[in-house]
């Protein structure tokens, strides 16, 4: 009697075939969809193990996949790789930007999850919905590959730049995906699969009001600095004239001491991305410090310190600033 079962062989997962003669030809296949011609069998090696024969795959068996086993050309069994119990444990931690109002030419949104997610599914599970509850089709740019951070926990989605940039066919024929004066929501479906294949604990959404266009360059000279007192641990607080991109703020701002060395401490983005704080590890020295701004820093519409998102060539004040980082000196007293 021939039998097939999930087993282990020399520390590897295998399919164990019992009751076959030594030297029998054991082949494992994934049942094909209605197909043309001959399909190659699953790559792997066949090893005798006592009285049994084991098939050790070159690539691991996948959960939920059915495998058929043939011996000398005759199918002797079928096994389904059991799917582990999938609890709904992963949740959406944050939808960004955190501002309640965004410009009509908003460029990107982000979703941060509590655990790694499966890639390739953003198109199907992240939606923009207008204030009447209808999906705004074609608003988000389908991305392949998708934009994830290294942990696959933070997804960046772009609004279709062809509809935001002036002069392009997409913009002219379809217009902005968002409408000033209206609201919309970013919706994350509850059945968005995480990296283990399980659904989210719950869906999530965030509502935004749509304001006017933002087409000005980010100008650090216009920021309000609340300078901490010397010999305290009070944070330096920086207020912006508009919400800025939170992920870029974390990378593009730093504080240096009079010698130009980075001050040790912690920074963070304030409510709605409209401010940033920096708390030093040691007390502030009564000396000239500086806030250093990387010109790559962008607002929600993709305007950076260096350049506007789409530059009107007839406006000289939009000329790009390709230069070193911008500094804002301050002196705790």
């Amino acid at each position, binding site marked *: 009697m021939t039998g097939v079962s999930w087993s282990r062989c020399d520390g590897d997962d295998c399919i164990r075939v019992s009751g076959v003669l030594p030297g029998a030809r054991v082949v494992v296949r994934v049942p094909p969809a209605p197909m043309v011609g001959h399909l190659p069998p699953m790559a792997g090696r066949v090893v005798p193990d006592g009285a049994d024969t084991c098939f050790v795959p070159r690539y691991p068996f996948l959960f939920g*996949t059915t495998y058929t086993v043939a011996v000398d050309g005759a199918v002797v069994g079928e096994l389904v790789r059991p799917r582990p119990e999938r609890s709904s444990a992963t949740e959406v931690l944050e939808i960004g930007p955190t501002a309640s109002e965004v410009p009509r030419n908003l460029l990107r949104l982000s979703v941060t999850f509590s655990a790694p997610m499966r890639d390739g599914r953003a198109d199907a599970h992240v939606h923009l919905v207008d204030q009447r509850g209808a999906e705004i089709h074609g608003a988000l740019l389908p991305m392949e590959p998708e934009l994830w951070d290294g942990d696959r926990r933070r997804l960046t989605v772009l609004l279709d730049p062809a509809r935001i940039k002036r002069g392009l066919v997409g913009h002219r024929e379809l217009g902005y995906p968002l409408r000033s004066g209206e609201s919309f929501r970013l919706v994350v479906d509850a059945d968005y699969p995480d*990296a283990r294949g399980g659904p989210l604990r719950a869906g999530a959404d965030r509502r935004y009001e749509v304001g006017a266009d933002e087409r000005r360059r980010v100008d650090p000279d216009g920021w309000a600095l609340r300078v901490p007192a010397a010999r305290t641990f009070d944070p330096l607080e920086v207020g912006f004239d508009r919400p800025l991109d939170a992920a870029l*703020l974390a990378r593009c701002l730093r504080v240096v001491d009079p010698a130009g060395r980075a001050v040790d401490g912690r920074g963070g983005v304030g409510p709605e991305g409209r401010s940033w704080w920096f708390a030093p590890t040691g007390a502030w020295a009564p000396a000239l410090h500086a806030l250093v701004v990387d010109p790559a820093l962008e607002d929600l519409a993709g305007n950076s310190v260096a350049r506007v998102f789409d530059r009107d060539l007839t406006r000289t004040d939009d000329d790009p600033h390709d230069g070193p980082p911008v500094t804002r000196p301050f002196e705790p007293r």
Partner: protein
Amino acid sequence: MSGYGLQAGTAEVASAGPIAFGPDGILFLADNVGAKVVAVDVGDPGAAGRAVVGAQPFDLEAVDARVASFLGCGTDDVVIRDMAVHPSTHDVYLSVQRGHGDAAQRVLVRVDRLDGSIADVPLDGLPWAEFALADAPAVDDERVDGILWPESGGEEIHYGDLTLRVLRQPIRTATITDLAYVDGALLVAGLSNEEFSSKLRRIPFPFRGEVADTSLEIFHVSHGKWETAAPIRTFVPYDGGRSILASYTCTPVVHFTLADLVPGTKVVGRTVAELGPVNRPIDMVTFVDGGEEYLLVANTSHGLVKIACRDIDAQAPLTEPHEPVGVPRETEDLRGITRLADLGSGYVLALQRDDEGRLNLRSLKTASL
């Protein structure tokens, strides 16, 4: 292989990304998770003594089902990220992701040009070299900045009697969207999950650790009035590598010359065509027919678009009110094409999804395009 600085051993490639052949059958693999490009001598078994087979077309139905069957998974668990044709044996190489999420695994697959058989190409023992992307963060990047996290979760930190909850910021990732080898250098286009920019890297090959890549932002002008930059989605060198045609996430097709890519200068490409709204160019290839060089562009919404290179060179920058013209082009009734590669001897190889959802390899006779 020592001429290219390849070392013995086994390259570590963590993820399946774009691939492209360089000199002497060296394959470049973009690894977006590892934030690097790896050069591997794939040692194609057909390389020694195989008769030139490029004069014949090569078609293979249901290549996704064949790869899935070989890898022991369903077709839903096979993502073909890119395709390249070996320049001398014309074997077809596929950059494949097997499985998803935690089970995802990178596999380099070779399709034999002669009999259509499927094999994997383990990197074990293949001579290799790698180039780490300069501005990519280290895997263990512990960026200290965070966003204030008002509710539960995040990391609790204390300043005197002040308690803050901070969610540590995710690190930046650089994603390679396309790459090509031109005359001693690897050109790499990509985008970031943070800033929106249009960087094209030029990495000298053989890779030399002390030689940094040069990275330039390439602007383009829309209709003579608006100047913008955007990530390059796909690009193709032509005219012996002197010219580059690039398409963007925001759809324009832009021309610039390789000689323009000089560090410290501002590069502004010439927008030569727009291929229409709600459409994204996804791959491009060049071929020569009757002594003329042509470009084929695969699109998400339109059929295959064919453009004569001489028309690109003659095309004035798009300005109003000519829109939406641009270079003369033909939209072929060839839809569902996701990847293109030059098969040589009068054929272009296309990876095409048919009406039943199967992915097929199909040779397109260039004289008939």
